[in-house]
Structure formats: structure tokens, C-alpha cells
């Protein structure tokens, strides 16, 4: 094919006053990539029906009210209802407490376990399997297992405490320990995935850096602080943000461990409150309004996550 047959920018540009070409560039591009677009249809329709449409509906619902079968615009009243619900601030406090505790346990612990695993020369595959095993268990089974462990009467943990001469705890039955107990169970259930991500990042660190540090007289802690942490900084940052986004949507663990609310509402989380509004109180407007509040907050964290991801790609 000679160069003259190629469509040039000059040739394709419509002249002023000239008739527009019968097919626009968009239509041509569409036709050229017809197969790809055909395959995309399924995904696009799935997203449209199951993600985008519900999101738009949720936004509309947040400003609507339904009474006696009639749906009317409600202005800000759903948001006002949510803000005036006494459980609202308690749910946010509980959610932030869960997030904070989950970061202390669920962020630091998997990293330390990954560092330890990385030091093992033998049986690393076996140990990785052990760490990841809880993730493979059905979440409900894991939670019910912990419910048994936490029982103040016949539970395993109090039996162990008894053998060690320690006082029995109320675990899920006390406002002081209920949320911590939920976090411990959630960390055990979920830390396997984070540990494997950290482990992969650790194994990407060149051994020469550690050798150089050793030559400089660095011990284990200094090697971690001066080599491991800086080298995995980006992964740590991404996991930190993902952890925040995930933990702020906690629902399963408190729902199953404490029937949602817990003693004096001490494990009522924002997502559980949304569930209560929608499915127990038939207040979809309130549920959608509270969902919007959560969305705004999580959108901020998600934006930060995307920014960090771009940085890592760059």
C-alpha cells in the first residue's frame, strides 16, 4: 500500500461549507472495533443494571419519601431524619473505632507476619498456607466459631484464661470489649490476603540492599525500618487505604457476632444502621440518605487510592 492511500489529517478534515462525510470518525471507529464492542456489551449491561442504575436510584431515593403507596419528593428531610437519629453518631463512633482498631491490628499484624515469613528459608509454602487458611473458610463459619470461643460461660477463651489464672472476660457481652472482640475475629479471618500481598512486595526487594545494610552493621529492626519499610512504602500506602475503605463498610462480623447492635448498641456500625433502616424499618429514604453520607466519605479515600495507584504505575 502506497503512502498516498493513507488517509491524512488534511484529507479527512471537513472543509468549511463542504458536505459532512456520511460516516463520522466515531461511527468508523465503532465499526472497526465491532467485535470488541460486542464483547463489551455484557459487562456494560451488567454494570448498568447492577451498579450504575442502583447508584442513581439510591441518589433519588435519598430525596424521596413513600407513604401509603405514593412516592413524593422529600427535600432534605431524609438527611435530617438520619442526622437526628440518636443511633447516627453512635454508629459513626463505632465504625471509626472499628476502623482504628482494625488498622492497628489488621494493618500492622499482617505486615509483621509477612516479614517473619520472609525470613524463613524452609517450609515457607506450608506457613503461607496456614496464614491464608482462614480466608478460605466461609466467613459465616469463622464468625460462628468465634461466637463459641467468646461465650462467657462455656467459651474457649475463658477456659484458657481460667487455666492461666486470669479473670474471665465478658468479650462480646460488654461495652468495653465488644468491639475489640469483633476486630480480633475480623483480623483473624482476613489477614491472610494482606499477608500474601506484603510477602510478595517483600520478595521483590533486592537482596543486595539487605547485604549492604548488614555490612553497615544494621540489625533486624534497623533493616526493617531502613530497607523493608521504604521499599514497600507504596504497597503499604495502598493497603492502608484499602483497609480503611473495607473496614468502614464492616457488616458481617458484628451482624453475626452480636446480632448487629451489641450491648447498648456498642457494635452498631454505619452499614448495619443502613440495613436496619431499609430492611427492618422499611425506611428506604433514610437508608439511601445514610448511604450517601458513607459514599461521600469513602469517595475521598477512593480518590486518594486512585491517585496512589497512578503514582505506582508511573
Amino acid at each position: 500500500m502506497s503512502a498516498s492511500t493513507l488517509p491524512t489529517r488534511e484529507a479527512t478534515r471537513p472543509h468549511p461549507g463542504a458536505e459532512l462525510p456520511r460516516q463520522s470518525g466515531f461511527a468508523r471507529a465503532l465499526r472497526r472495533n465491532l467485535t470488541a464492542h460486542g464483547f463489551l456489551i455484557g459487562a456494560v449491561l451488567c454494570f448498568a443494571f447492577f451498579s450504575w442504575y442502583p447508584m442513581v436510584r439510591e441518589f433519588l431515593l435519598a430525596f424521596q419519601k413513600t407513604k401509603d403507596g405514593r412516592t413524593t419528593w422529600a427535600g432534605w428531610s431524609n438527611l435530617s431524619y438520619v442526622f437526628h437519629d440518636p443511633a447516627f453518631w453512635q454508629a459513626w463512633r463505632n465504625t471509626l473505632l472499628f476502623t482504628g482498631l482494625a488498622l492497628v491490628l489488621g494493618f500492622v499484624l499482617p505486615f509483621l507476619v509477612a516479614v517473619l515469613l520472609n525470613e524463613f528459608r524452609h517450609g515457607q509454602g506450608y506457613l503461607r498456607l496456614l496464614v491464608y487458611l482462614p480466608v478460605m473458610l466461609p466467613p459465616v463459619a469463622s464468625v460462628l466459631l468465634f461466637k463459641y470461643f467468646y461465650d462467657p460461660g462455656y467459651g474457649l477463651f475463658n477456659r484458657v484464661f481460667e487455666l492461666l489464672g486470669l479473670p474471665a472476660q465478658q468479650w462480646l457481652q460488654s461495652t468495653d470489649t465488644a468491639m475489640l472482640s469483633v476486630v480480633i475475629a475480623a483480623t483473624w479471618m482476613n489477614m491472610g490476603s494482606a499477608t500474601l500481598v506484603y510477602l510478595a512486595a517483600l520478595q521483590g526487594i533486592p537482596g543486595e540492599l539487605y547485604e549492604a545494610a548488614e555490612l553497615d552493621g544494621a540489625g533486624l529492626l534497623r533493616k526493617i525500618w531502613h530497607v523493608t519499610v521504604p521499599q514497600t512504602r507504596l504497597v503499604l500506602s495502598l493497603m492502608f487505604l484499602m483497609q480503611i475503605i473495607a473496614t468502614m463498610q464492616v457488616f458481617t462480623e458484628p451482624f453475626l457476632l452480636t446480632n448487629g447492635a451489641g450491648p447498648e448498641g456498642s457494635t452498631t456500625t454505619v452499614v448495619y444502621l443502613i440495613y436496619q433502616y431499609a430492611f427492618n424499618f422499611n425506611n428506604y429514604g433514610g437508608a439511601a440518605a445514610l448511604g450517601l453520607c458513607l459514599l461521600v466519605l469513602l469517595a475521598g479515600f477512593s480518590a486518594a487510592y486512585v491517585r496512589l495507584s497512578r503514582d505506582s504505575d508511573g
Partner: protein
Amino acid sequence: MRRTSFSPARQIRRTAVGALAGALALTALAACGTSSSDSGNGDSKPGTGSSDPAAPLDPKTKVDLTIDCMPPAAKAAELKEWKQDVATFNRTYPNVKIVGRSTPGQCEEPPRFTAALKAKSQPDVFYSYFTDLQQVLDNNGAADISAYVTDKSVPALNSIDPAVMGVYKKDGKMYGLPTSNYQMGIMINRKLFQRAGLDPDRPPTTWEEVRTDSQAIAKLGGGVYGYGEYSAENTGGWHFTAAMYSLGGDVVGSDGRAAFDNATGKQVLQQLHDMRWTDRSMSQTQLLKWGDLQKQITADKLGMFLAAPDDIAYMVQQLGAKYENFGMGPIPGGKATLTGGNGYMIKQGSSPDKIKAAIAWLNFKNLSPGKGQFEWARTKADQLPVGVPQPNFFTGDVKAADLKSRTDNATMPVANFAPYLAKPIPGKAEPPKAQEVYKVLDNAMSAVLTNKDADIAKLLSTARTQVDQVLANQ
């Protein structure tokens, strides 16, 4: 270098691949979407029957009815009876096809029910609690059946307690038919009462007696506790309300505001606190919900708890309990008792034929003395519970005849329920916005049962503020 021209064959092939991919995607979407047979106007053939509500269902009109709360396979005897009833019903109405839907656990779980209403995926004839009416109407979920319910379509209509019939009425319109009702009382484990030296034929009638009996039972040791109470999933608030009623108190006053922050409310919470922490006659394991106490009393680990009479049916059929081990008394305090129940509504948009068929089925299955759920001789033959004073909505001669039939066919020692029946207590309906009010009160209940240092006055005051906010947001 990119080609900019297409050969016709290639173009056709691409188009075909694109179309095929699109078709596959649409097929996949259709497969993962929900199929809906719901249909308001559904399966009856319009024009073949009469739209006159007073006219009987035309036997030539084909009607398909979906109905929930069909017994699941685990309840084999009840399922057998359901199938028998469908066959008997079809002898009179061969044109009506009953399509039962069963659910594990309770017939209605509020989250599932609420979602179904929103999605309009409830069956043609759907189970509901007495307290669901407003929620159903808010979702435009039930048909007005006033014109269809007469003493011709429901011959026992005038023998049904008007108060019970009234629960499904709003603004003079009827939206459902009741099928069962209950009054709360106190369930006791007769075996533990005997072991503790108490008289099982005399369940406690005051809250003071509840406390002393509970202490006596807890002294048995071995993980046995005297009294049990709920405090989660809104059931704590439900029982707090029952206890308030029993002492002559209220939860929501006639002025539409919280009415429990007073001496009666304090008495209810203080007694629970003292039984849990001073007497230690209540279990360390709290945050319990419906179903938990039934398991404990069946396992002979619990002496008593507030219950509806049909809890025993659940305990016997699902948990393997023996009838003779349990008895019931009236609610302690006895000033009033919380009443509730369930029934069926018919989906909004149903055709007149469908409504007529549904009412014919509900009448046969649930509202005809001597038939369906009231065919006690059959129930006895199937070794299902007979003798439980529930449902209990007939009046006058019909009630007397029904009670006699229950006694004649009893499969349990009816005398164990004699104290409950001997002292009728005025019934009182649940408060407005019941579930939201119960949610708030759950916190107060869980606090006194899990926190030794709970400040009861503060708990009640906080709950009052919260309930007032809930009620103000109607």
C-alpha cells in the same frame, strides 16, 4: 501500518461475531436476572370470570395462586396436611391451582419481607404479621378486599373476634384476613420446677414470684438458670413492652410520646438487673434473640421466659422437645398482655378472580371450624400439637365447639395450659412504629443484662429521648 479498508467477508464475520457476543451477553443477563411470575393480574384469564365481588368464583375460570408459608420439607406432617388440604380444596375448586412456597425458619423474616415488598415480588397471597399493615400499604402492596369478604365467602365471619378482624383494616377498608393470634404468657419448664421444689401447676403470677422461682431454679446449678430474656434484634424491646403492659404501664402514650421513663419502666429493668447480677439466676450469655431461649428451655437449662403459646409447637417440632415437660401461665403482673398474630394479604393488582380464589382458600384452610387448621382429629392423627390455645379468635358457640374439639383430640397435657386459660388477661396491641421503638429499647435491655453498673435512670431517660425522636419523625 493499519489497514483502513475491510473485505466484505471479514466485515460480515465481524458483524456476526459482534451480534453473537451481544446476544450471548443478553442471554446471560436474562439468565442472571430474576424471573417474575408475580403478575398482579396474572394467571387468571380476564373476562372469563365476573368482576362483581359478590358473585362467586366461576368454576370455569382458571386461576393460579402463589401462596407463601407452605410448610417446608422438614415439617413433613404439616406438609402432608397442606397437600391434603390442597387436594380437598381442588375438589370444590378444580379451576384453582395452588402453588405453595415454603421458607425455612419463620414464615416471615422482616428483612426478607421488606425487600420483597419493595421489589413487589411477594406471592399473590402473602403472609404477614398484624403489625405489617402500614408498611404494606406504604409499598402499595395489598389489595382492598372489603367487598369480597362477606358471610358468604367466609361463613364464620360473624364468629371471629371483631378486634382480631380489625387489625387488617384501615380507613374502613379491609386488606387481609387473620389466620392466627396470640397473647403473651409465661412458659415454664415443668421438670425444672419440680426439681427445684416448685409447683409446676402454679406458674408465677407476679414479678416477685418470678424472681423467687428463678432463684430456686438457678440453685440447681449445672448451667441451669431460672429466667431468660431477649435483648437483641428488637426482641428485647418487644419483651420490655410486654413487661410494661403486664404492670399496667405503656410504651407509647396516648399523646404519641414515650411513656416508659417512670417507676414502672424502672421496675422492669431493675428486676432484670437484679436477677442477672444480684441473684445470678439469669445466664451470663446475653444478647439473645427469638429462638435462643426456646433452645435453652428445651435443653432443660432454663426455667421460664415470656412466650406465645405456639412457641411450644416450634420447640417440639424443630427442637425435639416433649410436650409434657412444658406448661404456661398468664403473664406475671396480669394487668394487660401484649397481643399479636399473623394472617394473609392479597397482592395489589390481583384480578377479581384471583382475590375470590384466595379468599376461598384462606377461608377453607384457616377460618373454617372443623376444617383446615381446625381439623383437630387429623392434627392429632399426624402427631402434631393439639391443645395449644392458639389461634384463639372465634367467639360464642363456635369458640366453645372448637375448644371442645381441641380438648377431645389433645396430644399434650392440656392441663399444663390451664393456668394460662383460667385467667384471661386484657390484650393490648403493639405500639406505633413498633420495630423502631423496640430497637431503641433493645439498648436498655442489653445494658442491664450485660453491665452490672448500668444506670437505669439514665438508660430510661436516653431511651425516652430517642423514642420521642423516632415518633416525631413519623
